[in-house]
């Protein structure tokens, strides 16, 4: 009964979406206030119906109603409650429903918070948002109905893929979708602006908080995924340039560019056409990501239930949405007037450079991701484009971007002075150069690449804080005065500083970890001792440990340092009851200097076990750096000027020494 209710709610949501996608659009065109007014209640109703459907599916999972096919295939009575709930989106149908829930949530948010938007623009934005909803709702109803029943309900379900029964991966998809779908807001605003034929600073001020929120969510989602890969897969890696990973990374890169270019539109009323294009491309890359993951068109280690029929549907939808919006862009964009001119060396110039490099980086990732498909089509040869390709193309493009990211905020609008900016950054420059040289001179095992990575990372951290110090006149004014300035500094300036510095920390952690990590693989018998990075690990043996829905073989390594007991590591191999599928749980001990990481492999049959240890120095700097970036995004979002609903279509007079808005790279 509950499942039928959910199914029915989904159909009603589709009807609502059709209404919301047409009537307000016509109303905005014909200036009919009554038709325009349909948009808000329709958005609320659409969200409410999807929420009911989602609640119905969640209920079916929680009570283990195996007469619902999705539940029978993906759940199990023995599963802990948390994974019954997260199992809702651990499959194709449910995750699609979650995607739609978030899409309609964003639509409803515009209806709630967009009260100060001009009614015409709001109606068009909501209509475009609803049209995306029409596509996804028909997709789920026609090809992937989550409420499908089976005639004879089995007594027990199939269980959830054990790899998904993990907190890191359980919450990875919702954040990822909040990011992907969040970019649909920028897309809807862009298409609405194209229909209106008007892009102005107020438009940019409305778009930026949505883009920033989406970017922050997507960052969290990607980091959760990498963190999960790091501790769960037992390979000690965190990023593999797999097509599905790239699918989430491309919108992130494009979205980062969009954040920066929207600043130029807001502050200087120029780069409009480009910003509109970026907004369309960012969401298009999100859709492309969905297509890649769910059509199975590219070989990936991340398997989703793939189905060519679904592939055709998504591709058709992709062509409609992306092709349609790009043609609209081609027709309407030339009419957008560009605003103020600026010198190449200026804040605008730096932001343009940021966009150029990020767009190029996105293009190389896209090419590398699609290349195996293209080559297979045209030559029939099977290739894989792995990490070496991306490392050889992506990093050379990113290096100048990171170097320039510190200069950007130091340059004034319109026309700047590079030497002057350098003068003010010289402390940071010599500090980061000195650190890199010192590491190169005193720590063996480094390469020129690691030296460059450390220099760039330190430069980002030191340079970001140098520009902050300058803004609050640190050491040049009385400390109380600086403190007062720091408090009154716009939150977006803090956000930018933190995001840039976080990126620097991430780069430092990644460089040091990859350069100086130690690894040791061997067979050990109980009682044997191995020394890794100064830690003595004694293998105490392996015992069986039952879990709620799995059996684990858990190894015990007692770790000591300089003869003193330090900790115990307990890596596991688990076999899940319902599917028999094995998984690996790494044993990790975080220390100030890095992570000690242990994995247990197979028994060799004569009493020995394959074991693998890593010492990964500074790895936590990566997670801290990523968290600092996210914190920067969140703090920026709390900036008064970014508060959703704050901007009005009036140009504020404050310019000149105005602070760099959030995330200003370059």
């Amino acid at each position: 009964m509950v499942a039928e209710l959910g199914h029915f709610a989904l159909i009603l949501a589709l009807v609502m979406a059709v209404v919301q996608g047409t009537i307000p659009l016509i109303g905005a065109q014909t200036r009919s206030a009554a038709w325009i007014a349909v948009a808000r209640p329709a958005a609320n109703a659409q969200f409410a119906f999807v929420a009911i459907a989602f609640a119905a599916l969640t209920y079916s999972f929680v009570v283990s109603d195996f007469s619902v096919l999705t539940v029978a295939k993906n759940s199990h009575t023995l599963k802990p409650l948390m994974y019954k709930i997260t199992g809702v989106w651990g499959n194709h149908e449910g995750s699609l429903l979650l995607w739609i829930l978030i899409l309609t949530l964003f639509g409803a948010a515009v209806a709630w918070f967009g009260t100060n938007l001009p009614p015409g623009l709001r109606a068009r934005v909501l209509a475009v948002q609803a049209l995306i909803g029409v596509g996804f709702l028909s997709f789920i109803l026609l090809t992937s109905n989550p409420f499908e029943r089976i005639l004879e309900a089995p007594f027990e379900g199939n269980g959830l893929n054990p790899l998904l029964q993990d907190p890191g991966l359980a919450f990875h998809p919702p954040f990822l979708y909040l990011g992907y779908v969040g970019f649909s807001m920028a897309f809807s605003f862009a298409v609405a602006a194209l229909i209106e034929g008007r892009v102005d600073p107020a438009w940019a001020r409305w778009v930026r908080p949505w883009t920033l929120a989406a970017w922050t969510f997507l960052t969290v989602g990607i980091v959760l995924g990498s963190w999960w890969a790091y501790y769960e897969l037992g390979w000690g890696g965190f990023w593999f340039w797999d097509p599905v990973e790239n699918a989430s990374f491309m919108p992130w890169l494009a979205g980062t560019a969009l954040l920066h270019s929207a600043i130029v539109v807001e502050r200087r009323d120029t780069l409009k056409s480009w910003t509109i294009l970026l907004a369309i491309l960012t969401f298009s890359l999100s859709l492309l990501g969905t297509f890649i993951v769910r059509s199975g068109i590219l070989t990936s280690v991340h398997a989703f239930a793939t189905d060519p029929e679904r592939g055709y549907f998504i591709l058709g939808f992709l062509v409609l949405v992306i092709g349609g919006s790009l043609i609209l862009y081609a027709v309407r964009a030339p009419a957008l007037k560009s605003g103020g001119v600026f010198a190449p060396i200026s804040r605008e110039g730096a932001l343009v450079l940021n966009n150029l490099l990020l767009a190029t980086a996105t293009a190389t990732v896209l090419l590398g991701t699609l290349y195996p498909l293209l080559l297979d089509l045209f030559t029939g040869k099977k290739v894989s484009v792995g990490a070496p390709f991306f490392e050889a193309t992506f990093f050379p493009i990113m290096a100048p971007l990171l170097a320039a990211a510190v200069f950007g905020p130091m340059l004034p609008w319109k026309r700047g002075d590079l030497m002057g900016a350098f003068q003010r950054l010289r402390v940071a420059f010599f500090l980061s150069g000195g650190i890199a040289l010192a590491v190169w001179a005193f720590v063996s095992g480094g390469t020129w690449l690691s030296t460059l990575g450390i220099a760039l990372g330190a430069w980002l951290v030191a340079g970001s804080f140098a520009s902050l110090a300058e803004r609050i006149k640190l050491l040049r004014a009385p400390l109380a005065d600086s403190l007062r300035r720091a408090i009154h500094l716009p939150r977006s300036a803090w956000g930018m500083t933190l995001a840039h510095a976080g990126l620097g920390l991430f780069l430092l952690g990644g460089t040091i970890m990859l350069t100086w990590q130690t690894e040791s693989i061997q067979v050990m018998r109980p009682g044997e001792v191995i020394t890794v990075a100064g830690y003595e690990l004694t293998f105490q043996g392996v015992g069986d440990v039952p879990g709620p829905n799995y059996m684990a073989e858990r190894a015990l390594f007692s770790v000591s340092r300089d003869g003193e007991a330090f900790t115990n590591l307990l890596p596991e191999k688990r076999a899940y009851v319902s599917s028999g599928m094995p998984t690996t749980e790494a044993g990790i001990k975080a220390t100030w200097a890095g992570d000690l990481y242990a994995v247990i492999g197979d028994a060799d049959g004569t009493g020995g076990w394959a074991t693998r240890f890593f010492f990964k120095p500074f790895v936590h700097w990566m997670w801290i750096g990523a968290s600092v970036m996210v914190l920067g995004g969140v703090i920026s979002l709390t900036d008064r000027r970014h508060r959703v609903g704050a901007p009005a279509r009036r140009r504020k007079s404050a310019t000149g020494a105005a602070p760099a808005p959030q995330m200003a790279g370059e």
Partner: protein
Amino acid sequence: MTRKRQRMIFVVTGLISLGVATGLVLLALGDNLVFFHGPSEVVSEEFPPQRRFRLGGLVEEGSVKRNEDGLTVEFVVTDLVNVVPVTFTGILPDLFREGQGVVAEGRLGADGVFVATEVLAKHDETYIPADVVDALKAAGQWQGD
């Protein structure tokens, strides 16, 4: 600074970055592509032994042997027509099983033994790598489709 000059600068920097990116991509594609081959191709073709490639097929039933060091594993990859012996030192992925699809990356030694540096597994046990299916088809061992 005129609008025209500004546009010129945009276009020129755009072209430069595009050029550099194209150069990087071409260089990287030349060096870093890893081709995929099934056992029949490996056995029949003249193989440049120094080139890295991915070998895909099925792990032959009963072929997995562990060396005395406990870490080196030998197994045979088959497309049900031809076979290639493989050796790998390290910890195999959780889903490595006899009779199941496998993709190994490495080089072919002069003795015809494929020395794998990486053995890839899927995150899902019901999934067969698409490349493996293709290799089986190429060897005529996969009817239907």
